[in-house]
């Protein structure tokens, strides 16, 4: 999972010397993760596949310019994320992606009464309906919040790695992550609170 755990099936030198087996090993290691990242960002399998191909084509073309300041995994994540954000910006220019102003969530106001839905039986969280609800809530996040949340909470990357990938400060990663988590909690609460009530009436 961790982009810093570069497995030593290839070395940067092999890659930069144009060793095709080394490149294939790199593709094998990172393509599943980058594909999942692109799918979550775009919510469209064709776009996701296109971004995946684009990522490795660009990586191959630019390997000689990779200076190793970050890990090669972080560098690949960065290419995929940028490609996805660029496409999202093109589709929805009003939803400007990564450079939107960062607000602290002080103004987060809960208007409804808070109900605890953690007590639901575990099977309630595993239904197709619930899982679709989870997926939909991620897509409803702005690209800036979505990319941060996917990298930090779904791919388990560190704050520092996410900051490098997104080219923002670690403080900005933390702020965006909190905003994303709060928004997702709100989205899921609407659904799961309803399930608590329905189960109470069954």
């Amino acid at each position: 999972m961790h982009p810093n755990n570069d497995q030593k099936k290839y070395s940067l030198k092999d890659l930069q010397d144009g060793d095709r087996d080394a490149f294939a090993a790199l593709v094998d290691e990172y393509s599943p993760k980058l594909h999942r990242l692109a799918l979550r960002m775009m919510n469209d399998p064709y776009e996701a596949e296109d971004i995946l191909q684009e990522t490795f084509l660009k990586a191959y073309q630019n390997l000689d310019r990779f200076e190793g300041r970050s890990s090669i995994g972080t560098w690949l994540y960065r290419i995929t994320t940028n490609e996805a954000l660029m496409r999202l910006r093109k589709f929805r220019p009003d939803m400007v992606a990564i450079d939107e102003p960062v607000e602290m969530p002080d103004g987060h106001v809960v208007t409804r009464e808070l109900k605890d839905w953690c007590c639901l039986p575990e099977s309630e969280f595993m239904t197709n309906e619930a899982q679709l609800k989870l997926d939909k809530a991620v897509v409803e996040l702005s690209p800036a919040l979505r990319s941060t949340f996917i990298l930090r909470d779904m791919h388990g990357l560190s704050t520092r790695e996410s900051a490098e990938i997104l080219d923002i400060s670690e403080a900005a990663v933390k702020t965006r992550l909190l905003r994303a988590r709060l928004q997702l909690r709100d989205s899921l609460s609407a659904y799961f609170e309803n399930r608590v009530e329905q189960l109470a009436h069954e």
Partner: protein
Amino acid sequence: MSKCPELINELSDYLDGVAAPEICAEIERHLQECPDCKVMVDTLEKTISLYREREGDTELPEDVRKRLYRVLDLSGK
């Protein structure tokens, strides 16, 4: 939580286990006396764990992998 804006900014660090000890103590003290915040924190924690479980280590679909290898001019294994 609307009454408790000073703590909300520390919540992510608290849930990730990286908040300073004095902040943790303050949050935990507050949670004991504020039921709304307690629900907020519990459901927030549940939300995060649901997403961590959602994203497993799925393989690359075979057709996607084949097309990727073809585009990159790599020989498939």
